[in-house]
């Protein structure tokens, strides 16, 4: 008598957990698709465009890494509800950009990124910034906080570490630091951006 009940409840729990895992992936993907429209519309409007009614945030930049097939819309703010839909960005007092994303969705590619990798960040006003990965470092988040007052020539990406950890909510973080590259340094990757965008569209 107990066995069928156990089987049914375990089946339910199992499917619910797997559905949850799939929803995470689905949200991460869907958020990007829905935001695409808001992003293109925000080019023509002064005020931020919400991707759907009641959305927690709106896209403020487009992040692309040529060579790794990475092309994400970045949302305003880095709080947990926002990160479900896309990488979130906060800008410090002096323009230091901080982008956070989940290790198992949008920032899973950080596993492969190495120093010297060039990165483009397109802003809402159409300006394209060129960046280069300068450092990767693993730190313990319990005793440190991010310095929002750092220079605008630096960008920090943050995600949880290790990538294969089974438990979530661990204290370790991977910090990837990027340095701004003047435009003229980067004629080659400029054409690369055009290519990736072409693919994405």
């Amino acid at each position, binding site marked *: 008598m107990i*066995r069928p009940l*156990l089987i049914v409840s*375990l*089946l339910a729990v*199992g*499917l619910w*957990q*797997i559905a*949850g*895992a799939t929803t*995470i992936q689905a949200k*991460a993907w869907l958020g990007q698709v829905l935001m695409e429209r808001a992003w293109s519309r925000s080019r023509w409007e002064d*005020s931020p465009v919400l991707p759907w009614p009641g959305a927690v945030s709106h896209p403020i930049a487009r992040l692309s890494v040529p060579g790794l097939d990475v092309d994400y819309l970045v949302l305003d703010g*880095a*709080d*947990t509800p926002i*990160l*479900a839909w896309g990488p*979130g960005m*906060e*800008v410090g*007092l*002096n*323009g230091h950009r*901080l982008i*956070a*994303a*989940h*290790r*198992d*969705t949008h*920032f899973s590619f950080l596993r492969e990124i190495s120093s010297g990798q060039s990165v483009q960040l397109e802003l809402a*006003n159409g300006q394209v910034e060129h960046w280069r990965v300068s*450092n990767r*470092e693993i730190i*313990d*988040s319990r*005793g*440190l*906080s*991010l*310095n*929002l*007052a*750092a*220079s*605008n*020539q*630096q960008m920090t990406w*943050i*995600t*949880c570490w290790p990538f*294969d950890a089974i*438990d*979530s*909510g*661990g204290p370790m*973080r991977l*910090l990837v*630091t990027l340095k701004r590259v003047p435009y003229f340094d980067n004629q080659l990757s400029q054409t690369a951006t055009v290519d990736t965008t072409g693919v994405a569209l």
Partner: protein
Amino acid sequence: MFAHRLLGSVLLLFGSSVSLAQGLETDQAMLWLDYDAQSSSTVALVTDIEIEVTGMLAYSVIKQQFLNDSQEWAEGRYVFPLPDGVAVESLRVAVGNRVIAGEIQEREQARITYETARAEGRIASLVEQERANLFSTSIANIAPGEVLEIQIGFRQKIDYVHGEFRLRFPMSIAPPYVPGAALSTEAGSPQDGGGWSENTTRAPDASKITPTLVGPLESTNPVALRVELNSGMPLAYLEASHHLIDKQFDRGLWQITLEGPNADPHKDFELVWRPAVGAHVDSAVFLQRLADQDHALLMLLPPEQFVAQQTRREVTLIIDTSGSMQGESIQQAREALLFALDSLSAQDHFNLIEFNNAASSLFRSPVEASSANLRAARDFVHRLKADGGTEMLKPLDLAMQQQVSAGFLPQIVFVTDGQVGNTVEIIKHVRSTIGDSRLFTVGIGHGVNSQFLDDLARFGRGSAVLIADLWQVQNRMNELVTQLTSPVLHDIELHWPSEVEFLPTQMPDLYIGQPLLVAARGDKLRGDLLVTGLSDGQRWQQVIPLETFQTAPGVAAYWGRQAIQHELDRSGQDISPEESRLRVIDLAVEYQLLSPYTSLVAVDKTPQRSHAAALRRHDVPGYLPDNGQRGQSIMARAMPATDAGMLQRLLRGLLALAMVVLLLLHPFVSRDAALGTDQDTPA
């Protein structure tokens, strides 16, 4: 340099792990700060400010007690603001019952003196000027558990504007926006100030003006403040603008103390007093004789009623919408702008410029102040949001390069908190490109860089006004608008009875509500001074008898301070920077004053610390201004959570499914198992 900077940021050593800090001595250290929720600091600081006001001048002593709460010998460093244009003249270190007096030395020499004493284990203290209104103290060799007190004496002038006296004492420092590319600075070198910012190409001293700061929720270091006011006349009004005070009148003196034990150090202190009706504030001469020379401070009050004439104005309003303006500041700025828009008359022209990282103007060029245009401007003002950096040169250039219509008086009204690191660069640029435009500054919020805004207005031949609270917008903007719309007193000339030196050498234009302040030095100042000027094409003149002076201490220091400023202003203009430096040093030594090139240093005679004992350096955090920002700790942000937990859920789900499969297979498995058990039991 980074290891050193990191050590600097480890202010909150209790509990926060040193091992972590050591693990982080890399190129990246400046991106994050060590922090400790307990905010227990090893070197604590108690600040006690005593201000004595006599007439137009004040003498103040700021006492900083450094408490070493650790088991090791400590060195403390603290960066703090002082009122604009102060003349810092003395340093004393109190060790128990003994007092060590400081002396003025050339900046590099003073640093060597200090560092030598530090290495020898002597108690030593160094006070340096980082900016005209920003100073730092260092104190070396505080024994474990001991308290050392530093006393810094300085003089300042009281502002008399629009019929009231104002004494301002800044308490907080807002973190500035630092543009430019990072320079490599050697750790521990004189250029390295240990701040959170690196030195950059556009702000070469940024590391010295960016101390770590704490917000209202975390501050533990108390500040007390006391004012003794000898106003010399009956008063109708005496209040502090942002603090609650207790005041008592006794034997001709007002004693003002803060209600409650400590001041709120996140709000700037401002004391305002007005003479009683009938009491007359008149032009006055203050005199001090020093080293066989007369030093004088003259205050001239222009007539209050100019004959008003309608001048057509072309007003460009610039509004700072950078991140530091968030909170109440942007509201104050909006109100100020709306007030300025309301003051425009139909024949005036105007434009609006907004800036943060970039600057944009509402109209391509100034337009008529028609009701439709004004409506568009008000909508624009209501939509303003504060975010991003503070690239201040862009909007100023945009405004200064606008085509001025013939017959119009170009006025620029600049609304900002002045929080930038590259002030030197901006002032230099404005000086060379301002042309005929007049630049008026409106300083917003607590922790505003008022010295910088004052300098901008001085070189822009306008005036400066400060607003730190919403309720002040109406009053202060009213003062500004009166100045914008009334004619000025210009071409002011002084005719002295004998040969004297006087400052400023070029008299500024005088706006309504402002007195003319002149500092003078001569062998014997006697006879009548004739002051002439023009307003609206009419000649104005006033005679000041120099014989009817009041003696006042501090006038010589005021002269010295003005003379130093004069030489600094000439640097790179009509004299070379090196020549300017030498002149400043001469003046600073003659009048015993702190300057960009001279410091105060005090050294004890006998060493206290043995060579074997270690000395650890601690930077004591300053105070963030309280401008009603959402997050008070704008310096730091906790690490975000960056796990979606997908793998965890997937594994949990798969585990549950695997158990289902096991349960389904159970009948078959258990029968085999049962058989096995049966066989085993007999044995």
